């Protein structure tokens, strides 16, 4: 499994310009204070009436086309269907989707496995939110649900990689307590560095 994660990371480094967590638009999260010391969110709500958002866990292969559609939009090089199936068929309970009405607007794909035989490590492989539905905390909610599920399964830590230039993703995760564990030089073959973000649960 260890080699697989490394290989996956290598693959991500090979797909130029890919963010492992799907590129969020630069203005998806309001600049400045996301939460002050008292944990209150000062995020500006989206304009207009806010339709209810449903969050569901992956149920069947019928969800697959929408997941792929959502994730693929932000990637320059595509993942094959097998990559999606590797994560989602092995860890369907760690794949969450967001729905507005009949439209699927967000998805997160994770895995949870032993790292070096000792540490139970959760890995956020993909995250994407439809560009028309930004600024509604969908991304944060999906991540929170996934972490909660992994925490309940006794994960010790959660990791992911993202480009050092992906400021919206960095803000989203750092607000949840992720810190930058390692800098990965030239992780992406176009020369861009990545950061490994980590949240320690224990």
């Amino acid at each position, binding site marked *: *499994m260890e*080699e*697989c*994660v490394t*290989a*996956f990371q290598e*693959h991500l480094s*090979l*797909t130029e310009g890919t963010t492992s967590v799907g590129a969020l638009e630069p203005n998806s999260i309001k600049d400045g*204070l*996301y*939460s*002050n*010391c008292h*944990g209150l969110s000062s995020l500006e709500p989206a304009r207009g009436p806010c339709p209810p958002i449903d969050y569901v866990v992956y149920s*069947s*292969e019928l969800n697959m086309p929408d997941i792929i559609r959502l994730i693929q939009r932000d990637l320059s*090089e*595509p*993942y*094959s*269907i*097998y*990559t999606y*199936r*590797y994560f989602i*068929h*092995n*860890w*369907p*309970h760690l794949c969450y989707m967001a729905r507005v009405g009949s439209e699927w607007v967000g998805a997160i794909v994770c895995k*949870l*496995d*032993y790292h070096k035989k000792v540490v*139970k490590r959760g890995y956020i492989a993909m995250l994407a939110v439809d560009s028309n539905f930004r600024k509604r905390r969908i991304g944060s909610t999906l991540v929170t649900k996934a*972490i909660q599920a992994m925490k309940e*399964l*006794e994960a010790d830590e959660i990791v992911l990689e993202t480009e*050092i230039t992906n400021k919206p993703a960095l803000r989203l995760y*750092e*607000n*949840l*307590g992720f*810190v*930058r*564990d*390692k*800098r990965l*030089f*030239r*992780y992406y*073959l*176009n*020369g861009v*560095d990545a*950061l490994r973000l*980590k*949240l*320690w*649960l224990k």
Partner: protein
Amino acid sequence: MEGPCPSSTAQPPPLTAPTSPLDLSHSASEPAPTLSLSNGRCAAGSGRLGGPGPPLTDLYQWREITQPFLEATKELVLGELLHDDMFGLFEAMSAIEMMDPKMDAGMLCNRQNRKPHSFHTAKESGYLQLRAIESAHQIAIIDHTLACLVTWLEGHSLAQTVFTNLYLHSPYEIDDPIIKASSILTLKLIDVIRDILSRGSVYEEEDFQPLVYNFKLCEDISPLKAGSMLREVEDDLQRVLRNTKSKTDAQQSKEHAMASALFARIRFCRMFYLALISLVKQDIPEGQRQLSSALEQVKTMASSTHLGTQVDISKENPIGFERLANQRLLPPTFPRYTEIKSNEAAVQFFQRTAEHLLEATNVTQLNTFPTVLEFFINFSAHPTCVVSRSMLQLLYQPLYMMSQVPGVTCPVDKKNVPLFQDLLKDACRAFIAPPALTSTSYPPFNTIEIKNSVDSFFNQCCRPMGLLLQTFGHNQARRRDKIATLLEEFAAIQEVSDKLDDMLNSMSQSGDGPRPHMLFFSTWLLYHVLRLMVRYLLSGFELELYSTHEYPYLYWYLYELLFPWLITCLHRADTNLVEHEQLAESLRNAGKNKKKVKNANKKKATPRPYSKEITLFQGKASLCAGYFKLMVALKKESKILVPDPTFDNEAVRYEHRFLPFASLFTPPIMPYGQFLEVHDHTAKSPSSELLLAASKDFLRSRQIFETILTSLVPASTLNSSVGQNLGNAEDVASLVSICKNNCVVAGILSRDSSRNVSFDFTTNSTFPSVKIT
């Protein structure tokens, strides 16, 4: 955790005979089964390279199985997968969906609508010129090859860089002497660079890809012969230069310019290559001469890149470059193209590399371990390419010889190279003058037993100290992780030194003779350990790894523990050196006129050896104390982004951030509770008071730095390092300016705490300037 795997393996329908589509051993007349499954993995990229075999249509009987396949899949329920055990994540990532244009590199629309040239097709069709190549093309070929080399040295594969030059696929078939000679040299240059990097052992996959894809690198041509081939070409060009001196004849001028451009390039390549060969053989003066000679050509090269034929290598071009020539050698999921550096940038890269190599040779002048360590540290501070980093590891012979596997020939003259353990003994003696090293003819230090224990200790020190030097050869991001592992090595040797110190201490308490042995060996090790710990924490700032809400515990650890311990270490060393010197002095003066001796001593008040370094640490401690108070105040005023507490736990985070320090016994790790205590106590004071106190800390550190500023050397005179961790003049000057800034800003904030702040690392990548936004 093994979650329930919903992809069950369905029972395959019965087969008449299992056949792997790739198994060529079965005869073609065997009937194909109704459904053919491959056993195990389908090996991607196992297509045959080289000459064509019989067409595949002749090897097999093809049957269409669409209908049987669709029938068979009806047996599967929604979401059920036919899944071979060996098809894991790696296979999933490498697989492609055939005829998906985004993934299938073999589709015509992805191949520029033409088949990529190989050497043979290019030669047959006349696309590749092999004789009488015009000068403009020659310049372009060389420039573009150099650009490809640089791109390779920035972490890309040879297949997508240098080997896109078709001339390199079969250099002996080239007639044109310039291109033939430079092609052979390019291949040999690749070979020597691979050798240097592999022996240096300081590169990672992001730095360098060594794979040669079975290309021949002209091993049958010796370095001397390759050099002389180029020399001949140089001589021919010089003849042309002599014959085209006329300034009035336009044709001659043009020829002259071309010949001049080519000459510079050929000479540069020859000298650069020979320099690498010389340095690997440890012939330093020759290597230096050749590097200087290479550097002389750079200016002409840079000013003549426009004389080469301008091409777009993504299309067919007259200079023999084929971007997709080697695509079949690469896994299908590799990105299709690598962006090659510009010719101008490539010249700059080679210039910098040659300069850094020249600088690296200065290490051979240094005789003591501390000066060598400082050299390695300073060398690693500016971004150097992987070639010079690796070369430095080879040039410092005591280290290199230690890392050699016995029996393998290393091209080094062993006779005059000091043993690493002896250098370490000298360093320890110079650091703190332990009587076990200085007074080995006096009891109790003159026993064989003691001498053996001391020798054994220093032999064991070779590993951590050798790894310490090697650590500074890695790229900065990897270096931080290496330090974490290195601290474990030091923890192990610290146990040895503790026992040794105890033993020597108890043996030397009794009796007269030289000074008793105190914690000398441990202090020497501790000095290095503490410096590594400081470097580990500070490199996190340089690599942009810390969130602002983490600054309080980081700065606290530095000013409360690490810098004070370092200062204590050096004081102890200081004191012992002075004592040792005084004792030696009194032994020398025994019997002399005591009054004369007293007066003489008064006149020469020797400065304490570590006063400057201690001062530098005091300045940094005060600086960090200032940051700490500033951060506590800013947090109180809610000016610092704090994470949502649902999952974040500062105690857990703290423990993990400082985990590399946990393996050490000395210094003991400071638990989170201690930090919290200090933090909460500090936070009791009103913010304005804290900010004022921070301002004073910044002022004090500025004053401290200013006292040593005048005695520091500029960064450019690195090789005159005195073997002390002093930093260079520019570095300390930038700290002074940061202190000035922060002092003022903290003062402003103390009067008006509603302002927002940001942290600016442009002046100094380790210590930020606080800016009011």
